């Protein structure tokens, strides 16, 4: 079953950021309850870099959230000590915590996979390598293989490794989005039994605001079609949540057919369907991106 990770408990959002700073539980708990009611399977706790006081803050947020819900949490910060502090207090009954994230860099892998094993947690395996963002699908696969090997060495089981392909904005690096899709499509064979996840909304970063939901929704269905098993999403956006839960089977079929080389007859489609087919073709790289891709 496709899992939804809600991205909303994030220090960058004003209400949440202020609440974190003031150690005011209410807005955070309200948000957590809302996200769970909307169907989130996990909640991302994003503290940013959290260099100062990160440990204490992470422990506080985890306990605050777990006081009102029993969902596993993504512990999202670059501060390793803060992650460990979160792991220590993460409720066992909520399920396994997930470290977000471990890149394919020796210094990160050596430190963090053993930490995941020690606390019986999972982790996001981010295919970012020593040379930065991978240039194509093969480089993503090579980095993923390294992460999988390191996770296995540390004793973390496959389903607790959440492979993240690194979604890139389509408006500036259209080819990279293609490689990302291609890589996710390789996972069922290359990494059976492993989980996958992604920061979906990055695909539309930089595109016109009014077209971002369409891009996000379309790309989610495309990635689901090739086997993605979860995504980090806006837990307040009912449309994208519905798509994650599979409520738009009609569009999923249309997009799947388009991707599989059975394009629908455009004249038989309604306006919404045409938008999704056009967007699928554009994301696949069949037409070159421009902000006006829908008008062409």
């Amino acid at each position, binding site marked *: 079953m496709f899992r939804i990770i809600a991205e909303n408990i994030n220090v960058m959002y004003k209400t949440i950021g202020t609440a974190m700073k003031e150690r005011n539980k209410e807005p955070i708990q309200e948000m957590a309850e809302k996200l769970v009611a909307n169907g989130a399977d996990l909640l991302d706790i994003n503290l940013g870099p959290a260099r100062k006081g990160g440990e204490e803050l992470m422990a506080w947020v985890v306990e605050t959230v777990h006081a009102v819900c029993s969902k596993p949490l993504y512990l999202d910060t670059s501060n390793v000590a803060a992650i460990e502090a979160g792991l220590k207090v993460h409720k066992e009954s909520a399920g396994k915590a997930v470290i977000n994230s471990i890149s394919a860099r020796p210094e990160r892998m050596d430190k963090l996979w053993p930490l995941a094993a020690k606390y019986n947690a999972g982790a996001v395996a981010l295919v970012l390598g020593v040379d930065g963002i991978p240039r194509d699908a093969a480089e993503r696969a090579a980095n993923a293989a390294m992460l999988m090997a390191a996770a296995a060495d540390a004793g973390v089981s496959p389903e607790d490794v959440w492979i993240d392909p690194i979604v890139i904005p389509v*408006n500036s690096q259209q080819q990279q989005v293609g490689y990302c899709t291609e890589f996710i499509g390789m996972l069922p064979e290359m990494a059976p039994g492993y989980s996958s996840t992604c920061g979906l909304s990055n695909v539309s970063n930089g595109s016109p605001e009014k077209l971002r939901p369409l891009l996000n929704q379309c790309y989610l269905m495309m990635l689901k079609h090739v086997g993605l098993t979860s995504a980090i999403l806006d837990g307040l956006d009912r449309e994208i949540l519905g798509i994650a839960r599979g409520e738009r089977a009609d569009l999923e079929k249309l997009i799947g057919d388009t991707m599989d080389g059975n394009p629908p007859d455009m004249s038989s489609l309604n306006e919404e369907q045409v938008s999704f087919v056009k967007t699928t073709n554009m994301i696949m790289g069949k*037409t*070159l*991106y*421009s*902000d*006006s891709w829908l008008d062409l």
Partner: protein
Amino acid sequence: MAVDLPKRAYSGAIREIVVGKGDKSFCVGGETAYPFYTFEGKIPNPPKFGLDILDIEPEGWAGALLEVYGDSVKNPVTWAKKCVELGADMVQLTLQGTDPNDKNLGADHAVLVAKQVSEAIDVPLAIWGTANAEKDVEVLRPIAEELSDRRLLIGPVIEENHKQLGAACLAYKHVAIASSPIDINLAKQLNVLLSNLGVTDENILIDPTVGGLGYGLEYTYSVMERARMAALTQQDDKLQFPIYCNLGIEVWKTKEAKLPDSEMNLGEHKQRGVLMEAITTSSLLASGADILIVRHPDTMKLGKQLVAEMLAG
């Protein structure tokens, strides 16, 4: 045994654009294959070369350039005539004097110089602004109106002023040089915007923005390469336009092209700049340039020779 070389199947073609008016006008574009791939398709119109002149006497130009143009640079009219004598297919008048960060001369000056130059030569003329969105509208619009019978090339038309300059090209029947900052997606988008405005397909050229040798040439190369791939193999009709490369200004502003031998130990300065411009030229030709604006006539000669030899097969 005879070997059958694999041939690419192209699905699109570059549009043919008429530049200028009268006997010396010419066509660019029309390609149905990648640059110089005469064995796969047609290259009906060889790439053309223009020389770049300024509306004011140049300051800080390389000795190699000043030497070849002599006193003609003191007057845009004599300078333009000199370019025609040297064999230029066209002339680009760069309105350096109107730069708000420099002399900031006004529309009156720009119109007068453009008119005089236009009357003095019979080859096609491009008018190039200073890429200041507002100032270019201020000076290029009245030029477009004044010279409405000349079918000028007018640029750079950028996203910020495409409505005003696009409308001027439309109203006075000139060709818009759609200029985007070394970005394939923005290049396409600007062409879409110009089309939406009503500028028709036979009146658009693409300026991908050129980086000179050592200063970003490879980025321009990639953008042009991808534009041609989209145009010819993906039927992307918003990129099926000839490409205009304003490269002379980029090459000759670098210290490697400008500095005298006493200050730079990189070969004789007279050859250094020309060779840098020639390498930039040949690279841009290989990636799809249809019009190349250079500053040194020797670069133009080398470029024309290369084009002739490549197309002779």
